[in-house]
Every structure is written in C-alpha cells, then in structure tokens.
C-alpha cells in the first residue's frame, strides 16, 4: 500500500489515545483510586497501533500485564477499562482483574496474565483450535523480550511450528525485563535468528507505525492463506518505569523522547484536523473516568462468585 493511502487519522487517534490514557493514569494515580500495579506502555504505542490497524475484527489477541496499549488500540470497551482500573462493578471483570488482567471478548481480547510468558502457550492452543476447526482467524500474541527467557516460549514456538499454526508472535523488544538488560539475559541478542531456527518465519521490523502496519498486514495475509507461524521483533523503548508512574530509571534523564515523541509528532503532521481528534480523546477520557468514579464497587459477597463456571 502506498503510504498516502494509510489511514493516518485512525493511527493518530489510536496512538494519541493510548498516550493520553497512560498520562491520565499518571495524573490520577496519587489519589490511590487505582489500587493496583500499572505497567504503562508509553513509548511502545506504535507497535499496538500498527499491528491493530493491520488486523481484522476476527483476529484473536493475546497480550500481557502491560496490555493497556493493545487493549485500546484493538478497540476494547474503554469505559469498562477505566472502571476496571478503579475496581468497580461495571469494569471489564467487576474489578476482580484490574490493570494486569484486562480482557474483552467482544473484540476477542483474551484476559491477560501477570506471569511472564504464561499466556504464550494459550495463544498457541487457541491457534490449534482454529486449525482443527478449519477457521482462518489468526492469533496475535504480543509479548516482551523477557518472555523469551522462559522455556515455555521455546516449547510453544516449537509446537506452533510443528503443527503449522496460524499465529503471529509480536515481540516488543524494549531490551529490559524490569531492570535487567537483554545482555544480562542472552549471550547474543539474536532473537530473530533463534526463533527462525525453530522453523518459524521470523523478521525484525523497523519501529515506525506505518512500517509495522504494512509488514504485519502482509504477514497476516500469508498466515491466513498458508497457516505458517510467523514472528516479528520490533525494537522499542519503555519510557516509564517497569511498573508504576515514574520515568524509567534506565532512560537517560535528558532523553529527548521524554519530552517529545517523534513518531507522535510525525503522525500528527499527517492529520489536518488533529485538534478535533485531541478533543474527542479528552472527552472520551473524561466521560470514562466520570463513569468509573460514579460506579459502585462490587458487593462483598461477590467474592466467591465465578471461582467455578456454572454455565
């Protein structure tokens, strides 16, 4: 697709909405209304935006505890998202989940896990079901570079490759697992090469929204057609601390990205009426927070509900 035809308006909207949401969380966090850990995505937006824009509504999304960006980009219920952060009854999971376990089945967004790499085999299992059932839905599995430290990652891609499953692994390589740099975890950072040796098609992709969109779109089409598992690595930076609202201690203090995000400015430059979008976003945020604030907490006796499914 020629770059001009790319829906920059939508891209800017998604990108900015993620950024503003995370900033808003940072602002309200001191009130302790969000009584749970938050793992912010500031700096990593382009991946969620590019991949989500390349996806159809039928894709199945697996993410993790750092899932705000993916959730918002793929269009999860935004009001219920804020209510969930606030621990309210009309949140995505009635407050039982919180930031680390977002999910919304209306957009095939699976409830996420806070155990590193643990939902990667779940994504593979979902893809296996697609293959058994002869469905053409592709599973998208977002994960960090740290998740590749876990043996289960290698078992999972081995199985995906063995059974030739319709799945795309998206490695958001921010080079850190909490404060551990990749160099303290791998002898060489040859992620793509390692994955490729397991029989997947693997590629490193430049981190800009359009390129991510374009490459992902191509890959998703290939997967739909041939059911071959793919893997992409996208270098990125987490500008915030691993968890919580401070700036990342791994960033240089005067890192320019902390003041202005080039990618965001670029996307904005492509959108004439960006102020209208900004306004829309602010109003969506305000509405959602208002909704969350006014909502009720779950009742104490709901604690024992849904331990088991009685459907």
């Amino acid at each position: 697709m020629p770059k001009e035809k790319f829906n920059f308006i939508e891209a800017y909207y998604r990108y900015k909405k993620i950024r503003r949401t995370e900033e808003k969380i940072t602002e309200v966090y001191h009130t302790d209304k969000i009584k749970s850990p938050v793992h912010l995505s500031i700096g990593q937006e382009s991946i969620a935006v590019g991949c989500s824009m390349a996806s159809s509504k039928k894709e199945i999304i697996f993410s993790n505890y750092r899932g705000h960006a993916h959730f918002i980009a793929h269009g999860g219920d935004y009001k219920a998202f804020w209510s969930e952060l606030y621990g309210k009854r009309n949140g995505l999971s009635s407050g039982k989940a919180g930031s680390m376990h977002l999910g919304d089945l209306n957009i095939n967004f699976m409830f996420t896990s806070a155990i590193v790499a643990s939902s990667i085999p779940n994504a593979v299992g979902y893809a296996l079901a697609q293959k058994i059932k002869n469905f053409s839905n592709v599973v998208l599995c977002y994960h960090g570079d740290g998740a590749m430290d876990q043996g289960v990652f290698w078992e999972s891609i081995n199985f995906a490759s063995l059974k030739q499953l319709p799945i795309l692994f998206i490695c958001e390589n921010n080079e850190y697992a909490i404060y551990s740099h990749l160099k303290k975890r791998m002898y060489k950072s040859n992620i793509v090469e390692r994955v490729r040796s397991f029989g997947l098609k693997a590629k490193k992709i430049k981190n800009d929204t359009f390129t991510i969109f374009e490459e992902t779109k191509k890959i998703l089409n290939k997967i739909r057609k041939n059911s071959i598992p793919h893997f992409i690595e996208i270098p990125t930076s987490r500008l915030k601390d691993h968890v919580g609202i401070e700036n990342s201690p791994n960033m240089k203090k005067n890192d320019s990205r902390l003041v202005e995000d080039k990618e965001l400015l670029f996307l904005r430059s492509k959108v004439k009426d960006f102020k209208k979008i900004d306004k829309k976003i602010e109003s969506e945020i305000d509405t959602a927070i208002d909704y969350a604030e006014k909502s009720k907490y779950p009742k104490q006796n709901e604690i024992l509900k849904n331990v088991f499914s009685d459907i």
Partner: protein
Amino acid sequence: MSNSSNLSYGKAIYEGIYQSMLNNPNVFIFGQGVDDYKGHYGTTLNLHKIFGKERAFDTPISEDSLTGIAIGSSLAGMRPIFVHQRMDFLMLCMNQLVNMASKICYISNGHQNVPIVIRASIGRSWGQGAQHSQSLYSFFAHIPGLKVIAPTTPFDVKGGIIASINDNNPVIFVEHRMLYENKGLVPKERYEISLSSARVTKKGSDLTLIGISYTVVDCLRASEILKDKKIDVEIIDLICISSLDIKTIIKSAKKTKKIIIVDNDWLYCGLASEITTQITERLKFKIPIERMGYKFSPCPTTRNLEDNFYPSANVIAKKVYEMVTNKKDWIPRKIINREILEFKGPF
C-alpha cells in the same frame, strides 16, 4: 444386565472417552504415547484412527506448554484431554494449572472458562522409585478453581471421565496404575457420576475405613481379613478429592464412631488431614481418627522397602483390630495383592 458389560477400568475409561468424542466434536485428546500401540493402558487405543490425527495425537515432551495449549484451545471452545503417564510429570505443569487454569474464570469474572481434563496415572507397581510414584493430588485440591477426582471402580471411572469432560472447569483426573485391569459391570450408555459424592462401598458397623483410589482395594482386602475376627467395617470410597462429601462421612462416623483414613499419599498437609479436620469440626463428640498413608520418605526402589512404604491390607487390618478391640494381640494372615505380585513391568 444386557445394557451393561463386564469391563476393565482401562476399557471403561476408553469407552467414556470414545463416547464423548463421538458425541462432541470439540473433544480431543493428546499426550505422550496417545497414538502408540499400547495406547496408555488401552485407554486411548486407536482413537487417532477413529477420529483422525487432529483429534488424538502424540506430542513432544513439553508438559508445560502443552498444558497451556490445552487451556488456550479450551478458550476457543474445545474440550481437550491431556494424558500423563505419571502424576510426577505434572510438576512441570504447575504454573499453567495453579496460576492459569484455576484463575481464568475468576479473573474474567466468568466471561471465560477452562473446560480441560488432565489425566494422570499414579501409583506403585514395582521399582518405580522416587520420581514415578507420587500422588500429589492434594496440591490441586488446595487451589480454588480446580476439581480433582480419583475413581476406583470401572463404573465410576467411566461415569467420572464423562462427567469431567462435560464439566466446564479444569478437572484433574487421577487414575491408579494397579486398577487398569480390575473389572466390573459398566453400563453401555454415556452417563455421568457426581463430582462431589463419595460412595459407601461396603456397609459395616465397627469402624469406618475411608479409602481413595487404590487404597479402597486395600481396605476391601483388609475387611476380608478382619472377618477372621468378626470385625465388620464400613468402607467409603471417597472418589472426589476437591469436593469432600463430608455428609456421607459424618453419617458413617456417627454410626461407627471410629475412623481410619487410608490415603494414597503422604499425610503431612495432605488430604487425610483435611478429612480429619472436617470431621472434628463437625462432630460434637470426640472419636478416634487415624491417618495412614505413605511413609514420610521418597519412595525407595528396592522391593522390601517399597512394601513398607505403602499402606497394605495387612497393616490396615491390624490397625483396625487395635482400634476396635484396644488390643495388640493379633497378627492378621498374609493376603496377597495379586495385581502387584503379578506385575512384571516393565512399564
């Protein structure tokens, strides 16, 4: 009964799985050796030929991811059965079972659920040693969100596997290696047993023996020997581990006023402690309750230590006699565990 057949425990499991796969195209089964010529004690024999290799397949030795894969497929509407040759191997799956399978329904406030069945063989035979002999079912029962059952009879094992497959939650299905050849009457139809009821296997008045899986067989043998002393025990087959049928137990306790729990596992922080505790919490008066189980060591390989490791019919009978009569003057006649004596392995 023309609607029943005399089946082995292994065949009964097979029939339950076969009928479930026939009934529901979302049921599939996998695990090391599922499609080999032994078919996990015959319980999976030729399923791949009948239902195709997408619904019954062999796997890499990757227990951790495969548990996750089972879970993921269940989120997509499938009903996977994951077979393990030994319970011990489930130690590789604990993260997926304890942190994922048991939590997803709750985390999603009921939007998602995880209908998976994890089959695991436990038990002795002969020289299995420390790493191929553990039961460990109390681990799973400790976790809210998991169900655990361990049927003893062909009837219950067929109804149990069908009920587990039909259940909308993760079920750990415990099978004992020494039971696969035991036979019994099994209805031909597809039927379920309850996942929260125990069974009174034998009525009696002098003392209640509570067994689980293979120890029920030990209890039955003990009760035979105890006839020499005219002692009449009641035997309860627990069947359900995570959902204790305390009603049935209390009813028996009130009648016999003496209880011995014969577990298939170590005692410390185990199932027998839970049963003892629930009984004492519910009874207004004090009755003698004893726990029997594995010696508190890893399982030794050499036979004479191994025989000492497991509770046996003889040791059970002796303990019953002592509790009932308050005397220690009886040496029960030796009784033989045919299936253990005859077992020549190697597997």
